[in-house]
């Protein structure tokens, strides 16, 4: 069964460094998402992406964040200058995008640790 994949599974970085989290969505899906879950907190929406542009973003998704679909398969989240509070699980998700289908399918996540 097709699934969303994410790399790396765990990323450790120093505060102020740039990180890129990678995702391969399900191949026939059209909508792509990033969510994060800080330890002990809710899963929070960051951004959605459709037709090669951001379709929606949350207040969390400020100028230090960016997303890109550099080719036909990868979807990346870049954090430009990491802060301690960016430490979280980051989940990528994708959705097929038909009008009667709202289900989003999640990858296994990348655990980001900022030291």
């Amino acid at each position, binding site marked *: 069964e097709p699934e*969303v994949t994410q790399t790396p599974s765990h990323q450790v970085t120093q505060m102020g460094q740039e990180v890129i989290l990678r995702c391969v969505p399900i191949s026939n899906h059209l909508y792509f*998402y990033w*969510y994060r879950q800080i330890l002990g907190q*809710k*899963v929070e929406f960051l951004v959605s992406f459709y037709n090669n542009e951001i379709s*929606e973003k949350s207040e969390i998704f400020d100028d230090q964040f960016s997303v890109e679909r550099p080719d036909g398969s990868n979807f990346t989240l870049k954090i430009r200058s990491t802060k301690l509070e960016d430490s979280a699980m980051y989940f990528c*998700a994708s959705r097929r995008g038909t009008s009667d289908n709202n*289900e989003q399918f*999640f990858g296994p*996540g990348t655990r980001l640790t900022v030291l």
Partner: protein
Amino acid sequence: DQQVKQNSPSLSVQEGRISILNCDYTNSMFDYFLWYKKYPAEGPTFLISISSIKDKNEDGRFTVFLNKSAKHLSLHIVPSQPGDSAVYFCAAIASGSRLTFGEGTQLTVNP
């Protein structure tokens, strides 16, 4: 952000019995609801969903009930199995497609 709330952090049931997980919401613009299951070190796995035009949706052992007037939904699992032990998240969609999640309920099914 308290738009979606799962008031029970944990639930413990015996194998073979019914598990009932509850979720309340405040945003009347939500028109689609989903339940996800999550094991440790994995991403959320989609279970079942329901549109606001329905009050019930069933898929095998899983049934979701929606009470729009009470802004309440529930997930019933029957019969419960030990493999169902996981964290269950309720999520909702308003306009756009972002998911708004509840806090999650840890279900433990005892053999």
